[in-house]
């Protein structure tokens, strides 16, 4: 069986790298955490990996805007290396702050590699950071990270997670083109106001993919639900420990995809 190599990017203020590494390891990947400074020195380091994960945290303290400074570093130092990585059919996952970075580099939604920043993640409507669990309904069949049709339950923990579109045309393109990977819904799958949509995201969108389906950026944290005892009412559930958690789905799908394609 192919060994799947994943890299979890570190940077000043990134703070979900260890649990993200753990989730990938549970999914069967060989994982390294690498600091952005090492990649800036040697972008070719990326060649050794098939999955790149930008984990959650507060890269550079969210200074200027969430994910902005790290996105700026990637654009000015790793643009070519990232392009090559994607052209080889590899996967990129951005969680929370990582999603913010992917949006701010223009990689998401990307619109066929146009690189334009037509969306942003900005301050929650509530005006404050919130940690709460949300239900997510897949909005596309294209994205390799998710099981189409499987509604999942994951925690969010962010202050700047409201997805906003530059204009109606960009939003329409996302809707029509299947770029919305997940939408916030209630337990029964219906859309609704706060707290169902916890931040006021346009069209209830919680996650975006690109035109290839090989990039996923999402505000919720799949790496925080890889064991049943992380579920907020696990003491009320009849637990089958063999059954994979909703968070593991994302990582397992990624690893399986690489095994099948490399």
């Amino acid at each position, binding site marked *: 069986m192919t060994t799947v190599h994943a890299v979890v990017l*570190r940077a*000043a*203020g990134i*703070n*979900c790298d*260890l*649990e993200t590494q*753990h*989730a990938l390891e549970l999914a069967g990947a060989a994982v390294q955490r690498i*600091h952005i*400074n*090492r990649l800036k020195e040697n972008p070719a380091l990326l060649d050794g990996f098939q999955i790149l994960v930008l984990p*959650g*945290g*507060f890269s*550079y*303290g*969210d*200074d*200027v*805007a969430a994910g*902005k*400074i790290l996105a*700026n*570093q990637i*654009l*000015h*130092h790793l643009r070519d290396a990232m392009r090559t990585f994607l052209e080889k059919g590899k996967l990129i996952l951005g969680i929370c702050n990582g999603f913010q970075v992917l949006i701010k580099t223009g990689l998401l939604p990307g619109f066929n590699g146009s690189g334009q*920043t*037509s*969306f*942003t993640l*900005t*301050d929650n*409507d509530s*005006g*404050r*950071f*919130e*940690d*709460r*669990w949300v239900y997510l309904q897949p909005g596309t069949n294209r994205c390799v990270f998710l099981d189409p049709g499987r509604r999942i339950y994951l*925690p969010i*923990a962010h202050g700047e997670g409201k997805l*906003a*579109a*530059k204009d109606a045309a960009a939003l329409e393109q996302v809707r029509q083109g299947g770029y919305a990977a997940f939408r916030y819904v209630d337990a029964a799958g219906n859309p609704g106001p706060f707290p169902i949509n916890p931040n006021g995201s346009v069209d209830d969108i919680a996650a975006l993919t690109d035109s290839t389906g090989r990039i996923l950026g999402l505000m919720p*944290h799949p*790496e*925080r639900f*890889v064991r049943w*005892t*992380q579920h*907020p*009412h696990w*003491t*009320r559930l009849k637990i089958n420990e063999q059954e994979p958690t909703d968070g593991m789905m994302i990582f397992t799908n990624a690893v399986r995809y690489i095994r099948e394609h490399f």
Partner: protein
Amino acid sequence: MTVKLWRFEVSSRPGFRDVHGQAVLADIRECGVSSVQEVIFAKVYLIEADFDEAFARRVGQELLCDPVCQEFLIGRSTVPAGPMPACILEVHLKSGVTDPVAESVLSALRDMGVRTVEHVRTARKYILLGALTEKDRDRIIRRVLANDCIEEVVIGSDAEPPSPHTRPYELRLIELPIRNLDEEGLVRLSRERDLFLNLREMQTIQEYYRRIGREPTDIELETLAQTWSEHCVHKTLKSSVEFECDGQVFHFSNLLKETVFKATQELGKPWCISVFSDNAGVIEFDEETAVCFKVETHNHPSALDPYGGAATGIGGVIRDPMGTGLGAKPIANTDVFCFGLPNTPHDRVPKGVLHPRRVLKGVVAGVRDYGNRMGIPTVNGAVYFDNRYIANPLVFCGNVGLIPRDKCFKHPQTGHLIVVVGGRTGRDGIHGATFSSGEMTHQHEEIFSHAVQIGNAITEKKMLDTLLQARDAGLYEAITDCGAGGLSSAVGEMGAELGAEVDLEKVPLKYQGLSYTEIWISEAQERMVIAVKPENLEAILKLFAAEDVEATVIGRFTDDKKLTLRYNGVQVGQLEMNFLHEGICKYSRKAVWRTPCLPEPHFPSKESYTEDLLAILSSYNVASKEWIIRQYDHEVQGGSVIKPLMGAANDGPSDAAVIRPKYYSNRGIAIACGMNPCYGDLDPYQMALSGIDEAVRNLICVGARFDRIALLDNFCWGDCSRPQTFGSLVRAAQACYDGAKAFEAPFISGKDSLNNEFVCEDGTRIIIPPTLLISAVGIVEDIRKCVTMDLKEPGNFLFLVGLTRKELGGSHLSRLYGQTGGTVPTVDLHLAPQIAQRLSEAIADGLVRSCHDCSEGGLAAALAEMAFAGGLGIQADLRGLPVSQDCQTAAEQLFSESNSRYLVEVTPACYHAFAKRMLNLPFGQIGEVVEQPRLQIRDAHQRLVIDADLDALKAAWKTPLSLG
């Protein structure tokens, strides 16, 4: 190309919400100004760099402005056209104050290829629309927009921001003659230099200099003042005490050693690894790993600057485990706050004091932003409200760390290099240690603005990431944090047995202009001191540089038992370590306690107590803290097992937090606290025991082992030079000894903060109630056995374990009826540990479906919480309640706050096994879980005394502290 000052303003694009502007508008309304119609916010960047106009546009587009929801302009925006009068205010940081955003922009500009950037500054600009009086404008500035300690407000559109440039420093050695001063002169010297040393201490210092035959330099006096401050040496708690308690006389030669420490010593638990000796207490977790825990207060700074004070409070306590042994990895934060009532009218807030609502919001935001950025889950806490905290809010921040067993001790040696790591040193936080040791007055805001420290979580996070790598590579031999007293305390302590020499000009500075003394005593945040073997220096500096963390050699440890300080080669101070650490005179104090003789409270006999229950659930102390809890990331690091809010709708109040710190082990750590200042006025001894019992109860409820509980104490009191005030503290300390012994739960760390008093303009004094926070940490053998407090299934039985007595002194029912006296809840030191132990075993055996302790609001409140957290009703019957003989009325049984009581849900299948476990303990079946969502309680005479819909109960509980 020449360097030019570029000014950028970034604001919301039309069609996108101006979140900051709206938040400020809401705050303005909240502080009572209604004439402002709209607030427009813009972020201002001032960049001195060598790029041209075209590049400036790129900087605006690509870096500073979000292309989707923001727009920018280069230069100054003007007042919007229209009939509405406008006021433009710009908030700048005072020169010298750290600006982390500016630092990030600077490095991003370099990423964009800009070679010369002289300076970056940022500011916030507010345009207030509406007819505003000058008085209201100034009020808004003071109360909403800016913190006078660190910020400066520029009014109008043409006003110039403060210059960022500071003057260089030229060495000028300052001697402060002391040998010939009389008593008055000594006192004056102490006061004028803000030393907070009293006459006896000044005389001790005078004798020392007479003996060595010279005058002290300023840096020597400052070092002594820091090291001898109440904050650093706890001279009050370590003093000898003549204590008269209700006519009986006790003598302590060292209060702390003969109460709190003594219990730990006598218990002699082999799983205690390091107690009361390092920056945090350390206990065993498993064979390879240990847990450490420390709780600190940051009260005075939080009173002046709630956001900054709380942020640096949490930032500082995180560095305690990081500076314990060879450094622990922080894995959880705790926070407990005491505030004035949030609904206090503005005109009832004393001059020089911030409104409790502003303090609360600022403190929560400070803990939130620092803790969340550090990637440490904030998992447990509590909030208490009492208007005696209005001028002295209490902010307790705790941190739990994980450390390898073989890294629990430090070994600095002669010849090791002294290396300072992390943030740079600035003028911030000067005199924090001495300042926090004194009382506050209405003038404090102006006088002690420099005592406020400025935090930057990302600097600390970077430092943490690299320090753990260096620790695991074995690259340093000792570590400690720069907390109160700055380098002075850190180096002084680490070199106490050896001697140390420091070249102060080597310390990296945020800006020029600091004197050698300021460098030495600055409490600038995010700095640690490590001891490095010369042969490891190159490797460790490389490791730090690889992740942009600054590390600098500033001196070395010697063997002369002296502290030698130099600046550019000139000796500016030298002290004998022995005098510095042992020279402080011993104090003897008097303490008195007389148990107040107050009548028992009396409550009207009523048909229904539903309204009383609703009122108690919606009292600030009992009400849901969800608004605060959700702002904290309590799940980062992926270890959460019992979250602060659990239950069917994720909103039930957990008794304790449980985390699973190692990915491949099912062992867990439980964290809880206990505190009840309401009892302290009546009986500080029982208050302290109640705190211990509550902390233990909370741990037991979630499934912690009974025989692995460690405690921490935090005493916050008023001025203990008054024998009565000190007497109440002595009573609490005595209870700590008795409680720890009874539960076999040793104290492993502690801290005190005294003089929490405020002198108002008219001379009246506001004194906080005696406040003892007990924090507890326990081990969970298997986290899969943990239990939460929400009801699980209809048909299950509800038991109450423990005895309900007529103990309503200080209770919520008493508050409701304005009653002040009465017997406060006591702790039966024989029975309480037995109940806790048996229940812990029952939970470990899987006999319990849910468990919740009875605390504030008594049995009725606990039943309500269990019911609405589980979305299931309860049919309860007080005939089954084990009560003392004098506790017979429904009001007493429903609302007594007797300790050591647990409500337990048990399935019919486990009924007998559970009952057998509880044999010979006071316990009784008091009800059943039902589908119908109502709480119904019948008293001993079968009258329906409480009958409420769960939604109504939950709404009463959830509404009061939803602060928007």
